[in-house]
């Protein structure tokens, strides 16, 4: 077994795929430096820098995929998809439907997401629910290095557009780049298990659309994703001491949702708590409640999400992002 950091694992899986498939190319802003280790192995024809022209290069990535390449298009942050959403919303997501199922865009959009390092409300949102809302887009949010690499491989093999989100608190490079800048004077609550971990000797794809049970528990099912999974696991441990047995389901894929896994777990416990770092309204947390209701499961339900624009101030941010205290309080309420 090897161990790797989170982003190192993604890049390693990407490198394995690039060595096997010459159609995979990589581009985005600052990519020659950010992915320098890939650049010196695969050369400047396959690892390219772009101008700050997201609508042009993301749109081009989609069309290049339609014409046979397999581009990995990097966004500096998921927030900046705001300036080029058209390429995903009206094009990548719809090619397959419009062509009567005859044509798809095999493009991977890779973007850092998430908060917890004091970078303010245009740089810290998660936005996976916003993306998953659109039929035709696959949205992946890994929470460990092993899943990150395996899901990247799966994304590259998937016959359609995939958004691959990398949480910045888990990513050794993004957190240093945007958060600490090599300062030793700042601390972040980085989940150790998510930031570094065992990875396979040779990467195999982790199946898209399959959740994984991180912790078994009979009283309540907590469904989460990304950093939320780690916050939840921490909370579950504290709850154990209070005699509450909480199960933790890591979705890993937002769209398509693993409805079976969610329903199975909730049917057993009769209580569902969603811990979602994304915005609360009209998103993943509400979707999960619909999933269990549609399946005819009756359960108690609560959610811990982000309700507002993420504040810049660290102490305010800590309160509005899902944290252990809020999770524990919600679980206790569900148990009443």
């Amino acid at each position, binding site marked *: 077994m090897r161990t790797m950091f989170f982003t190192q694992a993604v890049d390693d899986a990407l490198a394995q795929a690039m060595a096997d498939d010459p159609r995979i190319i990589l581009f985005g802003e600052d990519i020659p430096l950010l992915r320098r280790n890939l*650049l010196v192995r695969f*050369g400047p*024809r396959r690892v390219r820098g772009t101008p*700050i022209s997201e609508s042009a290069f993301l749109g081009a990535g989609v069309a290049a995929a339609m014409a046979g390449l397999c581009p990995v298009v990097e966004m500096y942050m998921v927030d900046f998809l705001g300036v080029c959403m058209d390429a995903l919303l009206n094009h990548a997501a719809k090619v397959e439907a419009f062509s009567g199922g005859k044509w798809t865009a095999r493009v991977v959009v890779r973007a850092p997401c998430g908060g917890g390092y004091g970078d303010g409300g245009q740089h810290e949102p998660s936005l996976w629910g916003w993306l998953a809302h659109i039929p035709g887009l696959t949205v992946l949010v890994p929470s460990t290095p092993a899943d990150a690499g395996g899901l990247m491989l799966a994304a590259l093999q998937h016959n359609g557009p995939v958004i691959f989100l990398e949480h910045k608190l888990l990513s050794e490079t993004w957190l240093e780049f945007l958060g600490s800048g090599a300062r030793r004077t700042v601390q972040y609550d980085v989940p150790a298990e998510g930031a570094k971990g065992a990875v396979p000797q040779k990467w195999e794809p982790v199946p898209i659309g399959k959740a994984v049970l991180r912790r078994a528990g009979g009283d309540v099912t907590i469904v989460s994703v990304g950093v939320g999974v780690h916050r939840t696991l921490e909370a579950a441990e504290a709850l154990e001491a209070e005699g509450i047995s909480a199960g933790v389901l890591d979705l890993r894929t937002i769209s398509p949702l693993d409805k079976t896994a969610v329903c199975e777990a909730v049917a057993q416990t009769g209580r569902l708590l969603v811990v979602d770092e994304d915005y609360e309204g009209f998103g993943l947390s509400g979707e999960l409640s619909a999933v269990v209701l549609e399946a005819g499961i009756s359960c108690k339900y609560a959610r811990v999400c982000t309700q507002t624009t993420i504040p810049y*101030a660290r102490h305010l941010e800590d309160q509005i992002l899902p944290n252990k205290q809020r999770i524990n309080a919600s679980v206790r309420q569900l148990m009443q």
Partner: protein
Amino acid sequence: MSPDLWSLYALMLKSRLFEEAIAQLWHDGLISGEMHLGTGEEAIIAGVVTQLREGDAMALDHRGTAALLMRGVDPVLILHELLGNPDGLCGGMGGHMHLFSKEYLAASSGIVGAEGPTAVGFALSAQYLHPGAIAVAFFGDGAMNQGMLMESMNLASAWNLPVLFVCKDDGWAITTQSKSVTGGDLNERARGLGIPAAEVDGCDVSGVWEVSHSAIERARSGQGPTFLHARCVHFEGHFLGLQLIRIVRDPLREMPEIAVPLTQSFLRPGGAALRERLAGLKTVLAAVFSPLCDPRRDSANDPVRSARTILQSDPVRLQELEDQVEKEISSALASALVEVPS
């Protein structure tokens, strides 16, 4: 009218000292996240901002601190904001990339190019509500390639709006040299959209003042937008703690972290032929070593120092002015730090 170098220098110095203090707070861990300073671009900001008056608006990028300070926003409010204090300019909600002052009609954004539509909207509103008022957009060379900025320039031209588009060109967008990703000439690009373009040395505050003076007069009198292109350098690189700058300052600490994985990857079987790999390596090395021969290291490019050299002809007055500015900044700092939330 002609520029008053004394007051321009005082503003630039104030901004420089203020941002140096911010840098220290950031290094001490009292400011979180990224920190983009405007040190090096003070002449561009001062030359333009000193000509703004009530009703004029500013659309700012991720380096908006200097412009707000020079426009008159209380430095204590800005410091409180950066420290995440509820008494800050934006209640601790914004941080340095999202500074807003309704009082001065100034809005910042961390989204590159967003200054374009914002300035156009402010100018549109001015046409109806404040005839004679103008809007300024400050942005970088990298932003010139953002669609919404290009579209905004066209819109301002088509609607003959009172906008001053100010491109602070440091040649870089984070770690990318803009010339490697930019087609054509930026002034020609503006002219192609029907906007007059003026080139000015961004290190020469009087020059910036003069060129922007006629552009602003033009906008006020209903003759439409102007594009101002000014070169500058950012002494701290893109943001504080940028690895490319760290390498120059502490190569022994930084180099192994880069070199070891790079070499391993370069030698890894599977992938491109040697020629391609070497081309990749050349690109990386060029980027890594670029700061070594970077104009950022040359103090001749410091606009504050350039102005000071001229004013040295009256050393007594200069000393007085500098003492005054230093006192102002240190007292702002002292009162801001009194109640830091722990």
